[in-house]
């Protein structure tokens, strides 16, 4: 079983390393912009992430620790991020 997942599939408590930013199914133009926004917010390949909190409805949005800061985002955007989950 591979432990490479989209960050949007992660659950509370999951932690790991970002392995890919971008490479998603959005509209072309939106996707390019979203990728840059995510990079500027610290979501780069190699960044340590941990899913800290989930919202009530549909477990959305999510609060993520990225290296040493906390960021809130929707699972929709988190689908653009791929992480390698640490083995428990």
């Amino acid at each position, binding site marked *: 079983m591979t432990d490479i997942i989209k960050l949007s599939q992660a659950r509370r408590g999951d932690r790991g390393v970002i392995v890919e*930013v*971008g490479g998603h199914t959005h*509209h072309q133009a*939106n996707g*390019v*912009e*979203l*990728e*840059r*926004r*995510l*990079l*500027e*917010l*610290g979501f*780069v*390949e*190699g960044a340590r992430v941990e899913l*800290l*909190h*989930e*919202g*009530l*409805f*549909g*477990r*959305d*949005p999510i*609060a993520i620790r990225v*290296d*040493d*800061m*906390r*960021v*809130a*985002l*929707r699972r*929709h*955007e988190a689908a653009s991020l791929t992480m390698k989950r640490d083995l428990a």
Partner: protein
Amino acid sequence: MDIALKTARIALVGNPNSGKTALFNALTGAHQKVANYAGVTVERKEGVVRAAAGRSMSVLDLPGTYSLRARSPDEEVTRDAVLGRLAGETPPDVVVCVADATNLRLVLRLILELKAVGRPMVLALNMYDIAQRQGLRIDLDGLRAELGVPIVTTVATRRRGVDDLIAAIETQAEMAALSDSRWRSPDAAELRAAAREAERIMKAHVRPPERPDTLTGKIDAVLLHPVAGLAILLALLFVMFQAVFSWAAPLMDGIEGGIGWLGGLVAAVLPDGLLQSLIVDGIISGVGSVLVFLPQILILFLFIIALEDFGYMARAAFLMDKIMGGAGLHGRAFIPLLSSFACAIPGVMAARVIDSKRDRLTTILVAPLMTCSARIPVYTLIIAAFIPNETVWGFANLQGLVMFGLYAAGIVSALLVSLVIRKVFWRGAVEPFMMELPTYKVPDLKSVAFNLWLRAKIFLNRAGRIILPAVTILWVLATFPYPPENATLPAIDYSFAGMIGRALEPIFAPIGFNWQMVIALIPGMAAREVAVAALGTTYAIADAENATGLLASTLAAQWSLATALSFLAWYIFAPQCVATLGVVRRETNSLKWTWIMIGYMFGLAYLASFVTYHVARALGGG
């Protein structure tokens, strides 16, 4: 020599929430808004610093940003200022990059971008107090050599390091060489490379904290808990509106007594006549009836300021995101809407943080539906006059509950209107929601108190600048011309105000408004609380003989319950504030949208009042 004599222009640039405005205030003595969430500052503000030897520098406070590649209007302000793109403006002489010392990774990447602009730079490592408390080790000399810019450590909120910063800026202004800007919008590959470089610098010069902040995580475990978090948010709002009612009561009684006493004193000293009437019925009754609400407004602001400084706003936005998104609102619309509880003007301005044009417009269009603090006098007056002060369900105050309901009505209608806009006018893709969750900070008592004092000054200032002239004009209109000799009705019925009121009364009769209310609505266009002052003046003149000075009891005797409820419904929706309309005009840059907003808000106001009035009458409230 020449350069040193010319006033240097410096700009404060940095990530959101790094303390730029706090530093700006420390440098210039200004009182711009500082709060613990990203996106507080949305426009440029200029100030002057007196440096050593009597020279002065001009400082620019700018909205925070993660890059110069601006996407939203607030970030464009920063980009244009840094690159000197505005007409008739050159780039700043020195760029001061303000960094949160406890969160350096992202700002290091921004610094690499700023260096490409080619202006002399100084790095202010702010929040150094927190860095030291956490035992964060930053190798300042190494970092200085690596980045090639002078570094100063600062604690903006305590004014620590400010003199060193000024000295460093002056040196840079005189010594550093300018070069042409090589900046251009970085693409994804360049961003990755810059992030790797920032990571390398970070590893080389910054040791992780020995005592990292664990408190924020613990607090979040409760406040962001899916169920408990939402319950706490609701409870907080509930307590806030109850407090606005119950805590303020004794203070309001005191002010009311003071105003009554003043009116009596003036009436006793001045001879009967026009002057006495102007001062007692016009000014004291009018302005006084609004001043009474100062305690309530301060209590509301106490909650808002404390929550903002603590760092709760971003959490509330997180908890509410799904609901906001369901109504078709952008994820970042929450903070503009929440700011509108204070006043719609900063709320409309704060919509600048939203990048998508349409989402920004939707937010602006619904922001004035949120219950701003100027509605408090109107709501409280009517509630105090018509809703019994009793306890229900054993713990809640009925008057507070009605107030809570009025706030809820504002929120729900804002969500519904935005849903309609989304469904009817444009259905675009859902916009992303990404927001930093700042670390919690204990609000500083002194600064909270000072900010409250500022709010009080603004409120009193408005009373002087808007309400006083408005009630004076109204007094003239309500006093002249004098009634004929054989008058049977009260004198006011024959005045200009009486005539205007009677002429417009038919329009408002279907929603249960009498002509006194109609007159109050006209100056009430200036600002919502002016309507209360206008009612105070109108009823004081109409009933000068046995005026008790207590507007609420006059209204309770003169209005039906249905009329009172209809008036409340009107104020949930009606756009009775020219200043807001002006800002909407400026921020949307469109007369058309301003008129659309005015139209839909008056339309809803009339409809809501009509329904309320007739339902209340059918239920026996007529």
